[in-house]
C-alpha cells in the first residue's frame, strides 16, 4: 500500500499530466476555428492548479516512492519557477498561436508534458528517474521545435535538436552507468553518504567517477547550452517558433541546471576539486563565445540564442563557486534569468507576425514611441539582461560575482565582469534601434494587444522588478533551498 503522502508529494506533476491528457481528449473532436482556444485556458488553469498544489507539496516534505523523489525546499523552489514559467509561456501562446495560425491544442499539452518532465528532473534524487524526466521534457521540446511543420527552418531546428539531443542524452546515460558501476547505487544521496571514491567491493574508483562526471556534464552541458556543447543553440533557437525558443531557453535550461546542482553538488561532492575545472573552463568558454557571437547578430532570435549561451556562462561562474553560496546564486540567477528572457521572447513573438518575417534588428527601428508599452517592456528585459540596477538581472549578477569572489575565483570573476560590460553593447543596440532610429520603409505594425499577452508581460516585468528592488525573500528562499540541497 503506497501512503497517500507519496501522491501529495508529486501532486503538481499529477495535476499537470491530468490536464495535458484532458486537453488531448478535448482537442480530439474539436474542429475548425475554435481548435485550441479552450485548450489554452485549460492549460492555464492546470498550471495555476499545479502552482497552488506546490503549496500542498511543500506541506509534505520528505521522500516518496522508495527514495525516487524528494520534496525539499530545493524541489519547491524549482517547481515554483518552472511551473510559473510554463504559465507565462501558455499565456503568451494564447496570443501567439492564433496570430501565427498555429492554434492547436497539442501545443499546450506538449508544454504541460514537458513541464511534468522537468518537475521530475528537479524533484528526483535517483539517476534513472532523472533520466526519465529529462527524456519526457526533451521529447516534448523536440516536437515543439518543429511545431511550424511546413517551415523548413523549423524542421531543421527540430531535427538538429533531436539528433544532437539524443546524442547528448546518450552521454548522460553512459555517465549514469559508470556512476552506478562505481557506487553500486543510483540514488544521489546514498552515493554522497557512502563516499564515491570507494565502491562496495572495496576498490578505488576515482578515475571512473571522474569519467562519469565528464560524461554527465556533456549531457547536461548540451541542455544548458554551455560551451563547448553550444553549437546547436543558434540554429535551433532561430528555427523554432519564437515562443518555443523562449520556453526552451527558460524551462529546460533551468531544470538541467537544477539536475546539475543535485548531481555535482550532492553526489559528486567528494571529487569537486577535479570537476571544478570542467565547470571553470565551460564558464569561460560560454561567456566569451556567447558574447562574441552575439555581437554581430542582426536576427534577434539568434542574438538571444548567443546571449543565452553567455548567460549560461554567468550561471556556471556561480556554479564553480561551490557550497551554499554558489548554489543559492545559481538559483537566484535562474529565477531572474527565466523572468527576463521569457519576457523578451514574449515581446519578440508578438512582434514577429505570421511566419515571423519581423525578427531582425532593422524591423525594431522606430518602435519605441509607436508601441510605448511593448518597447518599454522589452527595454526593461534587455536592461535586466545587461544587469542594470533595479532589475532582477542586476542582483543575479551581483550574487554570482559575490559567490565567485567569496570562493577566491578572482580571475573568473574579472572575466565575467568584462564579459558583462561587453554584452551591454548588443543588448543596448536593440534599445537604440527601438528608440533612436526610424525604419527604412514602412514601420511594422503591432498586432492587437490581447489580455493573455498583457498578463504574461506584466508578470515577467513584475518579477523582474520585484527581484531587482526587493530581492530579499527570493534570496532567502534560494539560500534555504541551497542549504537543504547540500544537507
Amino acid at each position, binding site marked *: 500500500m503506497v501512503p497517500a503522502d507519496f501522491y501529495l508529494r508529486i501532486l503538481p506533476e499529477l495535476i499537470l499530466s491530468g490536464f495535458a491528457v484532458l486537453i488531448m481528449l478535448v482537442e480530439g473532436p474539436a474542429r475548425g476555428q475554435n481548435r485550441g482556444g479552450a485548450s489554452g485556458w485549460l492549460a492555464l488553469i492546470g498550471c495555476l492548479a499545479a502552482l497552488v498544489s506546490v503549496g500542498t507539496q511543500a506541506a509534505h516534505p520528505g521522500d516518496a516512492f522508495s527514495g525516487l523523489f524528494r520534496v525539499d525546499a530545493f524541489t519547491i523552489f524549482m517547481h515554483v519557477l518552472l511551473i510559473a514559467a510554463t504559465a507565462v509561456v501558455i499565456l503568451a501562446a494564447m496570443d501567439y498561436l492564433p496570430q501565427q495560425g498555429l492554434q492547436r491544442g497539442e501545443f499546450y499539452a506538449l508544454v504541460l508534458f514537458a513541464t511534468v518532465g522537468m518537475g521530475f528532473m528537479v524533484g528526483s534524487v535517483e539517476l534513472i528517474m532523472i533520466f526519465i524526466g529529462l527524456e519526457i521534457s526533451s521529447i516534448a521540446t523536440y516536437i515543439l521545435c518543429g511545431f511550424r511543420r511546413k517551415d523548413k527552418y523549423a524542421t531543421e531546428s527540430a531535427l538538429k535538436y533531436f539528433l544532437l539531443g539524443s546524442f547528448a542524452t546518450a552521454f548522460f546515460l553512459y555517465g549514469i552507468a559508470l556512476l552506478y558501476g562505481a557506487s553500486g547505487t543510483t540514488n544521489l544521496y546514498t552515493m554522497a553518504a557512502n563516499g564515491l571514491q570507494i565502491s562496495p567491493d572495496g576498490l578505488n574508483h576515482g578515475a571512473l567517477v571522474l569519467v562519469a562526471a565528464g560524461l554527465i556534464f556533456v549531457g547536461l552541458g548540451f541542455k544548458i547550452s554551455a560551451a563547448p556543447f553550444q553549437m546547436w543553440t543558434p540554429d535551433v533557437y532561430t528555427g523554432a517558433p519564437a515562443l518555443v525558443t523562449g520556453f526552451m531557453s527558460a524551462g529546460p535550461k533551468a531544470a538541467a541546471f537544477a539536475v546539475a546542482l543535485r548531481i555535482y553538488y550532492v553526489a559528486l561532492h567528494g571529487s569537486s576539486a577535479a570537476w571544478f575545472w570542467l565547470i571553470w573552463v565551460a564558464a569561460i568558454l560560454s561567456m566569451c563565445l556567447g558574447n562574441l557571437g552575439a555581437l554581430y547578430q542582426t536576427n534577434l532570435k539568434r542574438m538571444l540564442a548567443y546571449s543565452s549561451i553567455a548567460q549560461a556562462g554567468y550561471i556556471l561562474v556561480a556554479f564553480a563557486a561551490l557550497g551554499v553560496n554558489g548554489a543559492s546564486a545559481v538559483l537566484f540567477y535562474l529565477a531572474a534569468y527565466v523572468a527576463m528572457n521569457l519576457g523578451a521572447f514574449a515581446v519578440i513573438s508578438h512582434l514577429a507576425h505570421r511566419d515571423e518575417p519581423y525578427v531582425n534588428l532593422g524591423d525594431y527601428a522606430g518602435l*519605441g*514611441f509607436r508601441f510605448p508599452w511593448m518597447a518599454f517592456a522589452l527595454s526593461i528585459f534587455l*536592461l535586466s539582461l*545587461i544587469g*542594470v*540596477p*533595479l532589475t532582477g538581472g*542586476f542582483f543575479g549578477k*551581483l*550574487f554570482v*560575482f*559575490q559567490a565567485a*569572489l*567569496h570562493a577566491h575565483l578572482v580571475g573568473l*570573476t*574579472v572575466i565575467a*565582469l*568584462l564579459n*558583462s*560590460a561587453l554584452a*551591454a*553593447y548588443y543588448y*543596448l*543596440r536593440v534599445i*537604440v534601434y527601438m*528608440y*533612436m*532610429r526610424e525604419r527604412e520603409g514602412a514601420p511594422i505594425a503591432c498586432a492587437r494587444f490581447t489580455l493573455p499577452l498583457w498578463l504574461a508581460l506584466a508578470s515577467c516585468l513584475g518579477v523582474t522588478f520585484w527581484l531587482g528592488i526587493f*530581492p*530579499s525573500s527570493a*534570496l*532567502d528562499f534560494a*539560500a534555504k533551498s541551497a542549504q537543504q540541497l547540500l544537507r
Partner: protein
Amino acid sequence: MDFINHTIVSWTLFFPLIGIVALLLARGDRAVRWVALVFTLATFGLSLHLPFHFDSASGGFQFLQRAPWIPAFHIQYIVGADGLSLWLAVLTTFLSVIGVLISWKSIQKNTKAFFILLLLLETGMLGVFFSLDLFLFYAFWEITLVPMAFLIGIWGHERRLYAAIKFFLYTMAGSVLMLGCIIWLYNLTGTFDFTVIKSGLASGLFSINSTTELWLFLGFFIAFAIKVPLFPFHTWLPDAHVEAPTAGSVLLAGVLLKLGPYGMLRFNLGLFPHAAQRCSEVIVILGLIGIVYGALVAFVQPNMKKLVAYSSVSHMGFIIVAIFTFSQIGTQGAIYQMLNHGVSTGGLFILVGMLYERRHTFELSEYGGIATVMPVYAAFFVLIVMSSVGLPLLNGFVGEFLIMVGTFTSGVLHAHVYAIIAASGVIWGALYLLHWTRNTIWGELANAKNKVLKDLDGREKLVLTTIGLLALFMGLASPYFLNKTAATTATTIAAYQPVTAATSARLTIRP
C-alpha cells in the same frame, strides 16, 4: 523638525520620482513642461533645507537615515550628507531646474519621455551623492547611465547613436570593475556600510595588505577616472557632449562629471589612503597633462561644443591635481571648483545651445560679431566666459586660486612644479576662451544669416541671469560655501597629515 532632518534626504532623493508619476498622468506638452518645472523647483527647494540646517562644525554625516534593504547581504538603505556632498546635491537640483527651463522650446519631440528621463537622471545623480552604502551607491551610479544614454541617443544631434553607445559602454566598462571591487570589499569586511568600512580600515579592524589595497584602489579609480574624465580616458566626452541636447550637456558637464572627483574624494581617499599616496604622483601628472592637453585641443576646435567639452577636460584636470596633492586648502578648492565648473561650464553649454537653436550649427566659422545683433546675449556670454576663465570677483577665481595655493604649499614632491604647470593652464584657458569670445561675439558681422538673429527672450534671460548671479555670488561669498565644507575636508585629509607634515618639515629644514 527631527522628522524633517531625519527624512529630508529621502524626500529630496525621491521627489523627482513622484514627479515622474505626475508626468505620466499629465496630458499635453504644455502641462508636461510645467509639471517638470514644478517638480524640479520643489526638489530644489527641498534640497535647500540641507545647507540651512547643516552643522558646519561637524565633519561627519548629517541628516542620516538608514533602513535594512537586503538583510541576507547586509545591504542597507543609508543616506546622508556631509560637506562634500551637500553642495553637489544642491548643484544637482539647481541644474535640473535649469535643464527643464532650457529644454522648454528646444525639445518638441516626445516631450513627456524627455522630462521623465530628466527627472530619473536627477534622482540617480542625487542618489550617488547621498548614498552611504556602497551597494546603494553603485546602484544609483549605474542608474544615471541609462537616462543619460537615452537623452543623448534620442534627442541628440547627427551622430547621437554613436555617442550614446560609446558613452554607455565606456562608463559601463569602468563601473563593472568597481562592482567587482565593491563585492571584494564586502567579502573582506562583511558589510557595505561606508562608515563602518572606513573606520574599520582606518583602525585596522579590517586589515588588508598593500597589494589588495592597491587593486581595490585602482578598481574604484578607473571607474571614477572615466567619469571625470581623466586623460587618457577622456575620449568619450567630446562625442557625448557634442551630440547631447543642451540640457543633457549641462547635466553631463555640471553633475555627471562631478561624480568622478566626488567618488575619488569619498572612496579612493577615504578608504585607501596608502594606495592613494602611492599612486598620487602618476595621477597628478595625468591631471596636469589633461589641463594642458585639454586647453590646447580646445584652442584649435572649429566646433563650439567640442571647445567647451575639451575645456571641461582641462578644468577637471585642476580638480584632480588638487585632490591628489592632499592639502586642506587644495581640497577645499577642488570641491569649490566642482561647483564652479558646474555653474560656468553649464552656463557655457547653455550659451552654445541658444546660438544653436537660432542657427542650427556649432561651427565657429559661422559666427562673428554676434554682439551687434544680440547685445544682451553678448553681455551674458562675456560674464560667463570670465567666470570660466577665473576672473577675480567671479566664482572660478576662488576655486582656481585655492587649488594653486593648495598645490603649491602641499609639500608633496615637486609641488612647486605641479603648481606652476597648473597655473599655466589658467593662461591656456584664458587663451582659448578669449579667442572664442573674440571670434564669436566681437568683430565684423560678416555672415548674412546672423544679421537677423533675435536677442534673448524672457525665459532665456531668466536662465542666464540666474547663472550669472550665482557666479557672482559664489565669487563674492565663497566663505559661506567653504565654511560648510571645511570640517569634512579636514577629516578627509586627516589621514594624510602626517606624511604631508613630515615632507614639509623636511623641506623647511633643508635651507
